[in-house]
C-alpha cells in the first residue's frame, strides 16, 4: 500500500460526507446505499465513523459529473477514467467525483427499481414472461399510456407482480420540482420540447420542465435514464432503434462495426447514415459500490497500491463477494489504527464438517469415457478456486459438446444443454495424465473424437484414455517461431485452423500437416475481432474470440454480433 506524501489524513475520526447530486442510471436510494456500504468497508476496520450531511460543507463532498466538471481533471467519456478523489484536507481535498458518462450499476447490468404497481418497490426480474413472450428489459407492451413497466418475478401471468420502471413520465430527480414528472410539450426560451433535452446546459445532463412552460414557471427536474437507453454518444436517454441503417446496411442488434475499440453501439433513429444519432448499448456497467470504496480510500489518505487484488489497485475489476484485501487493511490502519472495541462473534455453523466438493456423489453422476476425472474424486484440485473470479483462462474449448475452461491444472465444465450448471473443478492430471498443467489450446476432432491438446511448442493427442505425444508442433509444419497455439477451430470434417499471435494456419487432420499458403493474418479473414485473442473456439455454431474477460462472438455470416463477458455468458456466473 501507499499513502500520500506527508501521510495526509483526517485529524478527526468522525468524518462527514454529503451527496451533492445523483446519477440518472440508478435510483437515488440505491446510490445512497452503495455509498453507505462503501464507507462501511473502511469503518469496519478502523475507528473511523462516517456521518452523512444533507446541507453545508462536509469533509467528503460526493458528486457525479461529465467531462469538464469543475476541477482541473476532466473525465473522458465512457470507460477509461471512472472516477477520482482528492486526499484529505480542506476545500476540494477529500472530495470524490464520479464520471457520469459511465453506466453506473452494481456491476452486473442495469439495476431497475420499480415504482408504484403492486410489488412494493421491488427490483425488476429479468427476464420475465408476459403473455408468453420473454422480456429482458422494461416494456410498454400491454399499456396505452406509454409507461415502461416490468414484472418483479419471473412470470407475470402467474404472479401478477409488477411495477413501473424509471422514466421521465413517472418522475424527475434533483432540480426544483420535488420529483414531479415531465410535462410534454413544454416551452423553454420560446421553443417547444417534446422530450427531455440537454439544451441550455453545459454539463450534458438531460432535463425537462414539470409544467407546460419553463419560461414562466421555472420548474424543472432531471430525467432518469430508462434501462433501455443508450449510454453516451449523442443520443443519451434514447433507446436503440432496430433495425437501423449504417453504411447502407441494416442492423437488427447492437454492433461494433465502424469502431476500432470493439464497443457495441446502435443507432437511435432508423438511419444512422441520415441522422447520425447513436449511443453505446447498455452493458454490465461499473459497480458504484466498488468504485466508491476505492475512491473513499483516496479521500481517507490511501494512494494507489501495486497489489493487483487490493481495492486500491488503480484498475477496476468486478468482484462478486467483496472483502477488503489485507494490503488495504494494513494501509488504512497505518493511518488511523485498528478498530477499537470487541468484534462481534460470528455465528458458528451447527452442522458437522462437510464433504469437500466435488464429492463422490457428484462424480458418479456423470461418467464420461474420454474425461476420466469426472468419475473420480480429484485430489489435486483446489475447490476454493472460483472460476468466476478469474480474469482469463488458459484455454476454453468444447469437448463432447460441453464448454471446458482450463486454468492452472484444473478445469470446469458447463453443459451445453439443460440447466445443470457449472461443474468442477476437475484435475487435468487425473483426466489426462500426460498433460502439463497449462494448456494453451485444445480441440476435439468432430470425426474421430480424438482430443488434441497444445501446450507451448508441444502437443498431445488423446483417444479415450490412450495418448500419443508429446510431439513438437514443428512436426505439424508450424514454424519454429510459433511459441504456442492459442486457439483451434475445426472447419468441415478434416481441417482445423490453428491460431497463434496475429496469424493462423490451416491444419489438415488427414495428412497431419499444415496446408500450403499459410499463415494468414487473423484480421484479414475475421473482421472486427481482436487480432491477439488468446482463446478461439467454436460453440453452438458461433466462433468465439476471447481476450481477458471478454469474448467477441462471430456468427455464421462472419459478423461480430455480440461482445460480452466470458464469465457471465459462457461460464454462467451469477
Amino acid at each position: 500500500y501507499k499513502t500520500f506524501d506527508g501521510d495526509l489524513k483526517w485529524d478527526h475520526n468522525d468524518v462527514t460526507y454529503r451527496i451533492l447530486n445523483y446519477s440518472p442510471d440508478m435510483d437515488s436510494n440505491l446510490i445512497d446505499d452503495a455509498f453507505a456500504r462503501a464507507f462501511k468497508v473502511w469503518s469496519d476496520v478502523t475507528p473511523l465513523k462516517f456521518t452523512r450531511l444533507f446541507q453545508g460543507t462536509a469533509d467528503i463532498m460526493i458528486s457525479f459529473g461529465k467531462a469538464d466538471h469543475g476541477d482541473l481533471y476532466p473525465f473522458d467519456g465512457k470507460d477509461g477514467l471512472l472516477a477520482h478523489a482528492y486526499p484529505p484536507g480542506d476545500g476540494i481535498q477529500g472530495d470524490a467525483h464520479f464520471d457520469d458518462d459511465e453506466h453506473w450499476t452494481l456491476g452486473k447490468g442495469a439495476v431497475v427499481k420499480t415504482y408504484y404497481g403492486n410489488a412494493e418497490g421491488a427490483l425488476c426480474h429479468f427476464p420475465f414472461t408476459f403473455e408468453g413472450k420473454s422480456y429482458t428489459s422494461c416494456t410498454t407492451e400491454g399499456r396505452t399510456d406509454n409507461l415502461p413497466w416490468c414484472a418483479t418475478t419471473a412470470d407475470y401471468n402467474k404472479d401478477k407482480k409488477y411495477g413501473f420502471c424509471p422514466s421521465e413520465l413517472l418522475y424527475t430527480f434533483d432540480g426544483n420540482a420535488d420529483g414531479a414528472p415531465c410535462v410534454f410539450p413544454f416551452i423553454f426560451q420560446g421553443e417547444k420540447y417534446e422530450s427531455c433535452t440537454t439544451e441550455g446546459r453545459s454539463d450534458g445532463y438531460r432535463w425537462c420542465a414539470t409544467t407546460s412552460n419553463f419560461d414562466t414557471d421555472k420548474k424543472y427536474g432531471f430525467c432518469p435514464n430508462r434501462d433501455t437507453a443508450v449510454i453516451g454518444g449523442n443520443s443519451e436517454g434514447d433507446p436503440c432503434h432496430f433495425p437501423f441503417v449504417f453504411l447502407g446496411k441494416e442492423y437488427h442488434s447492437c454492433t461494433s462495426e465502424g469502431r476500432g475499440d470493439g464497443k457495441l453501439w446502435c443507432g437511435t433513429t432508423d438511419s444512422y447514415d441520415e441522422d447520425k444519432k447513436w449511443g453505446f448499448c447498455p452493458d454490465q456497467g461499473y459497480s458504484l459500490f466498488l468504485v466508491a470504496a476505492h475512491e473513499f480510500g483516496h479521500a481517507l489518505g490511501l494512494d494507489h497500491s501495486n497489489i493487483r487484488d487490493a481495492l486500491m489497485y488503480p484498475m477496476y475489476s468486478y468482484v462478486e463477494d467483496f472483502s477488503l484485501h489485507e494490503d488495504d487493511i494494513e494501509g488504512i490502519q497505518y493511518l488511523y489504527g485498528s478498530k477499537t472495541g470487541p468484534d462481534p462473534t460470528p455465528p458458528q455453523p451447527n452442522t458437522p464438517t462437510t464433504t469437500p466438493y466435488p464429492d463422490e456423489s457428484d462424480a458418479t453422476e456423470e461418467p464420461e469415457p474420454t474425461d476420466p476425472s469426472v468419475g473420480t474424486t480429484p485430489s489435486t484440485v483446489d475447490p476454493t478456486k472460483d472460476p468466476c473470479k478469474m480474469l482469463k483462462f488458459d484455454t476454453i474449448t468444447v469437448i463432447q459438446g460441453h464448454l471446458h475452461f482450463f486454468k492452472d491444472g484444473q478445469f470446469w465444465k458447463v453443459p451445453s444443454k439443460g440447466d445443470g450448471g457449472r461443474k468442477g473443478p476437475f484435475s487435468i492430471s487425473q483426466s489426462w495424465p500426460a498433460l502439463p498443467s497449462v494448456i494453451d489450446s485444445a480441440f476435439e476432432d468432430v470425426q474421430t473424437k480424438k482430443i488434441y491438446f497444445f501446450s507451448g511448442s508441444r502437443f498431445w493427442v488423446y483417444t479415450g484414455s490412450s495418448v500419443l505425444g508429446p510431439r513438437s508442433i514443428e512436426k505439424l509444419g508450424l514454424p519454429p517461431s510459433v511459441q504456442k497455439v492459442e486457439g483451434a477451430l475445426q472447419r468441415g470434417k478434416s481441417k482445423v485452423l490453428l491460431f497463434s499471435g496475429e496469424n493462423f494456419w490451416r491444419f489438415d487432420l488427414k495428412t497431419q500437416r499444415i496446408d500450403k499458403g499459410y499463415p494468414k493474418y487473423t484480421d484479414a479473414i475475421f473482421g472486427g475481432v481482436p487480432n491477439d485473442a488468446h482463446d478461439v473456439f467454436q460453440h453452438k455454431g458461433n466462433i468465439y474470440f476471447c481476450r481477458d474477460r471478454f469474448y467477441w462472438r462471430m456468427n455464421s455470416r462472419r459478423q461480430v454480433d455480440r461482445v460480452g463477458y466470458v464469465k457471465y455468458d459462457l461460464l454462467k456466473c451469477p
Partner: protein
Amino acid sequence: WSLPVKSVFVTFPGDVVKNVTDVELAESYLKRFGYMETEHRSGFQSMVSTAKALKRMQRQMGLEETGELDKMTLEAMKRPRCGVPDVAN
C-alpha cells in the same frame, strides 16, 4: 472463408474517445498518471525517458519490466481505472 470483412471505421459525432495511435495513447497515459514528470526536492521538474517511464508504470502495475510498449502494457493502459495519478507530484 471466402471474402474478408472490410472494416470501415467512422468518426462518431459526440464521441469523446478519439482514434489515437498506440504511441499517442501511451504518451498521454504516462503523462496523465505521473510517470513522465519527476519533481525534485528542489522544486526542479524534469522529464524522464519514455522507456524509464514505461518501466515505472510496468512495476506499478505488476507487469514485466521491459521498458517497451508491449502488448500487456498497452492492454493495461486501455483498462478502466481511477483517475488519480499513480505517481504523485
